[in-house]
C-alpha cells in the first residue's frame, strides 16, 4: 500500500492537514497525531528524518514552522518519500506563490486537491507539477 497517511502539523502540534489512506477513527487519529508529533519534535535537525512509530515508518520534514509527516510501510524508500514531501511543497509553492502555513489553512481544500492528484490508494501516481495543478487551475477559472 505504500503511503498510509500524510500529515501537516505545526510545531505547536496543531494539525493543518490530515489525509489517511486507511481508515482510522477520530480517537485513533488524535492519539496517533499526538504521539508522532511529540516524537518528531524531540528530534534534532542532524538526526535522521525517519522515525519508527508502532508499525509505521514516519518520514518527516520541517519547513519553517510546519512539519510534513508521511507514514509509510516498511518497504518504502524513505529518501524518496522525503523528496516526495519536497515535491508536494514545491507544487504548493508554485500554486500559491511563497506558500506559507496560512495559505494551507485558508485553502485547505486546494491543498487536498493537490494531494488527491499526487497520491491514490496510497501510491504516488503523479509527479508532474503541471499535471497536478492543471485541474485545479481549470476549476478556478470555471468558478
Amino acid at each position, binding site marked *: 500500500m505504500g503511503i498510509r497517511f500524510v500529515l501537516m502539523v505545526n510545531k505547536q502540534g496543531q494539525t493543518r492537514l490530515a489525509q489517511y489512506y486507511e481508515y482510522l477513527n477520530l480517537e485513533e487519529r488524535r492519539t496517533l497525531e499526538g504521539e508522532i508529533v511529540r516524537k518528531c519534535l524531540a528530534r534534532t535537525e542532524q538526526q535522521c528524518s525517519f522515525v519508527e512509530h508502532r508499525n509505521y515508518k514516519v518520514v518527516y520534514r520541517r519547513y519553517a514552522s510546519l512539519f510534513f509527516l508521511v507514514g509509510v510501510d516498511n518497504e518504502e524508500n524513505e529518501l524518496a518519500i522525503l523528496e516526495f514531501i519536497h515535491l508536494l511543497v514545491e507544487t504548493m509553492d508554485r500554486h500559491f506563490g511563497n506558500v506559507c*502555513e496560512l495559505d494551507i489553512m485558508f485553502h485547505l481544500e486546494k491543498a487536498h486537491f493537490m494531494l488527491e492528484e499526487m497520491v491514490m490508494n496510497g501510491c504516488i501516481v503523479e509527479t508532474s507539477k503541471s499535471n497536478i495543478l492543471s485541474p485545479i487551475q481549470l476549476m478556478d477559472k470555471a468558478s
Partner: protein
Amino acid sequence: MGSQGGFGQSKEFLDLIKSIGECRSKAEEDRIVLREIETLKTRLSSPNTPKFKLKEYLIRLLYVEMLGHDASFGYIHAVKMTHDENLLLKRTGYLAVTLFLNEDHDLIILIVNTIQKDLKSDNYLVVSAALNAVCRLINEETIPAVLPQVVELLGHQKEAVRKKAVMALHRFYQRAPGSVSHLISNFRKRLCDNDPGVMGAALCPLFDLITIDADAYKDLVISFVNILKQVAERRLPKSYDYHQMPAPFIQIKLLKILALLGSGDKKASEQMYTILGDIMRKCDSTSNIGNAILYECICCVSSLHPNPKLLEAAADAISKFLKSDSHNLRYLGIDALSRLIKISPEIAEQHQLAVIDCLEDPDDTLKRKTFELLYKMTKSSNVEVIVDRMIQYMISISDNHYKTEIASRCVELAEQFAPSNQWFIQAMNKVFEHAGDLVNAKVAHNLMRLIAEGFGEDDDAADTQLRSSAVESYLQIMGEPKLPSAFLQVICWVLGEYGTADGKYSASYITGKLCDVAEAHLADDTVKAYAITALMKIYSFEIAAGRAVDVLPECQSLIEEMLASHSTDLQQRAYELQAILNLDSHAVKKIMPMDSTCDDIEIDKSLSFLNGYVQQAVENGAQPYIPESERSGMSNISNFKSQEDHESSTHALRFEAYELPKPVLSQNVPPILASSTELVPVPEPSYVADILQPAISAPSASDAGSSELRLRLDGVQRKWGKPTYSSPTPSTSSNDTVKIQNEATQRDSVGMSNSKTRDVSYDSRKQQVEISPEKQKLAASLFGGVSKSDGRQPSSSQKISKPQNPTSDKSRAAKAAAPDTASVKTSQPPPDLLDLSEPSVSSSAPSVDPFKQFEGLLDLKQDPTPVSAGGVGSTEASDFMSLFTDMSLNVPTDGVLDPMPNVINGNGLGGITAADHSVQQLNKGPNLKQALEKDARVRQMGVTPSGQNPSLFKDLLG
C-alpha cells in the same frame, strides 16, 4: 493565483482561521472548535443557505474533524454537495465525503448514484472527481455498480481520466481481487499507454500483482527494462523531472518491480544488469533524489542473481552512504548493507567502524537500523557482544512496542547461537528481568523447556551444569523487587525441578525461598501456583530419597492459606501437596518421579489394553465395532466448518431455493448431521467433495493441517467414538516427525552457512593504528577485527574534519568561509537551501540546535553559520532566505534596515541580509507581488505577522 481565489471567503471564515492559527494551547483550540460546532449546527439547519456559503461551512466542518472533534452532524451536507452542478462545489463535496466517511458508512449508498452519473459526464474534471471518490468510497458490495463504467473509462481520451480509472481498478483489486480478476490484463495494456502518467499509474497495480505472483509476469521483464531505459535517457516530458533527475519516482517504482521479477531468476536478472549499471553510474550522488535512486538500485542488485560488477558498484555506493555526514544517508547505508550481506557477507567487514559509529550514535532511528543489521549478521562468534548490546539498549528505552521486538530478538539469537550455558542463562535473566512482561509467554516456556532438555547434545554433564547455573543465578536474582511475573514463574519452576538436584542447596533453603516468592506476590495467582507446585516437587523428591521432610513454619502457613484460597486451582494444588506429604516414599516415587519433565507420557491411543475386555464382550454376543468407513450416510464434521466459513464470508442474502431434504440412508447415524449438510446448497468445491466421499475425506482432512482449527481429540475414543473425530494415530505422528526433521535440517543449514561466513570474515584481520582501543575491541568482537580497507577515522569528534566525499568537502569549505558570512553571502550566488536535510547542513555547527535557532532563542550572530555552511554546498542559484522565513517580505522594512525586529517577533532567522533580499526579489518577481497581495488581504482581516503566531507567515519554501 491561489491567493486571489481565496478572497471569496467570508470574514467569519477568516476570523475562524485566524483564531485557530493564533491560539496557544490545545484547550483554547478546543474551545474555539466547540463554539464553531454550535455555530455550524445552527447555520447548516437553516434553509436556503447560498451554495457558496455551504461550501465554506463544509470546509469549516473539515476543520472541526481535523482538529479532533466529531462533525458527523454535517456529513449529510457533504453528501448533498456531491450532487451539485458546479464543479468546484462538487469536488469539495466529494473531498469532504472521502475525508468524513469510510467505505462502510451508511451514507455511502446515497453517493453511489451520483458517482454513477458523474462517471458518465462529458466534463472530464467531473469524471476525475468521481473517480477520486470511487477510490475511497466503493466497497466490495458496490463495486459491481460502477465497474462497467470504470472499465470503459480506461479508454477515455483524456489521460488524466485513464490514469484515475487504472487506480480505481487497482483499488477494486485491493478490496476484492476476485471482482476484477478478469480485468487484470488491462493493467498490462495501460503499461503501453502513450501518456507517461498513465503508464506510471499502471506500475502500482502491477507491482502488487507481481509481488503475489512474479512468474506470471516474467514476459514483461523486457518491457520494464525498456521503459526504465527510456526514462533514464530522459525520453519523458520535462515536467516529470525532479531536481534534474528524469522521473525519479517512476524509476524507483520500476526498480522495485525489477527486484521482484529478478529475484532468484538468473535469466531475468541478466536482462537487467546493463540498465542497472547505467543508472548507478549516472546517478547524481549529491542530491537526495539521486541517492534515493541509488539506494533503490542497491536494493534491486541485492535481490537479483548476483553480478560481480553490480555488487561492486553497490558496495561502493554503500561506503559512500556510510561515510556521509548525513544521518539519512547513513541510515540508508546501514539498511543497504544489511541487504547486501546476504549475498556478500565479507562487505560488512570493510564498514565495521562506520557501523559501530552508527550503533553508538544518539539518534535512535539510526541505532535501531544498526541493530537490525547486527541481528542479521549474528553468528556464534559475535553473539555475546551483539546480544549484550541489544539488552543494554532494551533496558534504556521505554517504547514497549520496540522493547518487545528487541527482547524477542535477543531470545531468538541467544537460543540459536549461545556459546555457553552460563552466558545463555545470564542473558535470559536480563531479558526477563527487564522485559519479562512484554515477551511472549511462549518464550518463558521455551526457556523452561530448554533448561529441562539441555541443548540437545547427549551430554548429561553439560545439562546438569546448565541447570545448576540456572538455579544458582535464580537464587541470586529472585530477591530483587518487581520481577515480572513470567520470570518468577520460570524461577519457581526451575527451583522446583532442579533446586535440590545437585545437592548444593538443602530442601529447606529452597522451600524457604519459594515461600518468600509466593508471599511477595500475593496478588499473582499464577506465580503462587508455580511456587506451590515447586514446593510439592521439592517435598516429594525428599520423600522419595527417604529423607525426613521438615516443613518450615512459613511453608506450613502458606499451604494453609492456599487451602482456603478463593482460587480453586490454588486450593487443588495445596490439597495435592498435603496428600503427598502423607504418602510413603515408594508411592511418591511412582507419582512424582525425579527429573521426569522430558519423559514422554505414553498414551496408548489404540487402547490395546482393553483388547481382552472387548474380545470377551464380543464372545458374549456383543455387536462388533464397525469402523466409520464401513458405515454409510455418516456426514463429516468438517462440513460444518466449511459451511460456517462460507456463511460468514458472504454476508449477502442467498437467493437459491433450499433443496429438498434427502432421505437419510442409515439409521445408526444421527439424522441431524446428515440433513444439515444438505440444508444449504452452497456451491463450494471442497464441500461438494466432502459430500461425494464422506468417509474417505474425513480422516485425510483432519490430517492435513486443518486440525489446529478443531478440537484436538486424536487418540481419544478411537474404539467407540465417532471415527470422524480422531485421526489415525500413525499418520499424525509421522507428520510430526517430518515437521521436526524439517526444523532440524533448517537449523543445521543455518548453522553451516553461519560458520562459513565466520571463516570468511576471519580471513583478513589487520589492525589499524589510529583507532581507539575501545572501538577496536568492539569491532573485533563484532566483525573479527579491523581491516585496512576502512578509511573511517575513529573518534566521532573528528568526524567533521576527516577526508570525505565531495559534499562534505564542500561543507568544510563552507565552514571555513563561515566567519565572514556577510561578504560571502553577498558575493556568491545565493545558494539553494531548499533542502533542509542536505548532508552538508546537518554537518554544520553540531553544537547549535537548529530548532532553537528557528525560534530565535540564540544569539543572532550564530545564525549565519548553518545557513552558509549548507548553502555553499550547492551552486544552484535560488532564494534561500524565504525558505526559513520572510519577515522581511511581509514587513519589508524590517529585513532591509535591521534584522533585529525579526528576532523580537520570535523569528530567529533574521540573519538574512539586505543583499539576499534583493536577490530574492529578482528571482521571485511575480511571486513577491502575490505574496504581498496575500499579505495585505490577511492583514486587513486582522491576521498580521506581528500577531500572536508570526510563523504562520513564514514561507515554507523559497
